[in-house]
């Protein structure tokens, strides 16, 4: 699979239809465009104005010709419509056995939730399996757009929107919000991770199979490991690492490392101690205590994260302090 001049990597069952139709229209358009422009340039040169030479007379209209160039485009566009129509009907008819994932869009983050209860900030899907998204919005209009899959659907508050696709190859692909949703619209991007379904591939570091990932995401707290390891895993599942680093460097948000137990200044000028309570509140109600120097508000995780997960994350903070 390669990307082409006009398209990113095609990675869904829809891509051949969309790309094929695109190139068909491109061919027809190019033909007409070159014909029209060729004639225009030819006329510009052939019939350029020469002083003293009056134009030859030619008929002011020719009904047969005019009807011809009216009817031929009609036939062409009927064909284009037909192809676009069938492709669209496929896109809007999910198979009954599609794997369902619930999507909640809010400013400016995507939330994916699986039947096991596993939450995720990135969309993880199995390869070669029809996947159906049941989408809702908490505030304004959003639009889920995966260029590699050639799909897009607005997420409208007050109703469910549906979208389905079937990925062809494992890998990681961009997922955008395509409907303007306010300040950080352009940051409302995440990844679609297409997992293989090969049970042999369970290596967590190298795109594990979907079942492994799902089990992990559903229950990230493992009994046989220190709690901070689970906390680290949770920060990865919830994509905290998109904005927060674990090495002390500043990204969109402050780093996990080197903060726990310190005194920090808030944007309202108050000083606080970064302790268990502060971390907990920052996860559940992030806008209440924003640290000085960080403008971008974090989305709230209230209702999306279990208490024991927060404990694990706090353990991770403490662990980083020790390192």
């Amino acid at each position, binding site marked *: 699979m390669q990307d082409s001049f006009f398209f990113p990597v095609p990675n869904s069952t829809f891509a051949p239809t969309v790309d094929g139709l695109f190139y068909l229209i491109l061919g027809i358009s190019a033909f007409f465009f070159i014909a029209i422009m060729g004639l225009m340039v030819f006329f510009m040169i052939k019939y350029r104005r020469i002083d003293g030479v009056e134009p030859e007379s030619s008929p002011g209209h020719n009904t047969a010709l005019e009807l011809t160039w009216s009817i031929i485009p009609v036939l062409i566009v009927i064909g284009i419509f037909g192809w676009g129509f069938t492709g669209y009907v496929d896109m809007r008819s999910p198979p009954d056995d599609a794997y369902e994932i619930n999507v909640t869009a809010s400013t400016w983050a995507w939330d994916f939730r699986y039947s096991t209860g596993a939450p995720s900030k990135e969309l993880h899907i199995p390869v070669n399996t029809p996947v159906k998204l049941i989408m*809702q919005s908490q505030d304004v209009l959003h639009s889920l757009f995966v260029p590699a899959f050639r799909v897009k659907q607005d997420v409208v508050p*007050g*109703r*469910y*929107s549906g979208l389905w696709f079937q990925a062809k190859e494992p890998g990681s692909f961009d997922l955008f919000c395509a409907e303007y949703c306010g300040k950080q619209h352009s940051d409302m991007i995440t990844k679609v991770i297409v997992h293989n379904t090969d049970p042999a591939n369970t290596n967590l570091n190298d795109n594990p199979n979907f079942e492994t990932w799902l089990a992990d995401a559903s229950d990230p707290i493992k009994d046989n490991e220190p709690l901070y390891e689970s906390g680290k895993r949770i920060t990865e599942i919830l994509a905290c690492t998109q904005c927060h680093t674990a090495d002390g460097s500043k990204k969109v948000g402050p780093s996990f490392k080197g903060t726990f137990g310190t005194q920090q200044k808030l944007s309202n000028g108050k000083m606080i101690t970064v302790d268990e309570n502060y971390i907990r509140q920052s996860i559940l109600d992030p806008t209440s205590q924003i640290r000085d120097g960080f403008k971008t508000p974090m989305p709230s995780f209230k209702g999306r994260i279990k208490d024991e997960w927060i404990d694990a994350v706090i353990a991770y903070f403490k662990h980083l302090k020790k390192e």
Partner: protein
Amino acid sequence: MSDNHDEHGFAHVMSPQILLSVFGALIVLTILTVFLAGKDLVPRELDGHVSQKQVEIVVSLTIATIKGSLVVLFFMHMINEKPLNILLFVFSLFFVALFLGFALTDTGQYDSRIQSYELDIIEQSATP
């Protein structure tokens, strides 16, 4: 209607008889529509096929349309109006129909999705 045309040819004068009879008809229709509101108008043979509300909508809007037509035709002199102005007015109603038609078709189609979402919300709030 003897004074239908004055010397300038562009004034169409409505006779008092016409004005008063149109007015009378409008009054009668208004009283009729208020009287009929809320009455059970479903004919016995159609009982169970159409609801009372549907019949009520049809009856009320038919009376309103008749009243509206009377106003347009006589009070607004459309009966004597230039064909162009009549055409324009009728034409605009066509665009209103277009607007309403498409909007209704669409919202009718996706309404079930909104309803099901609202039901879920209600269930969620009922079981906290």
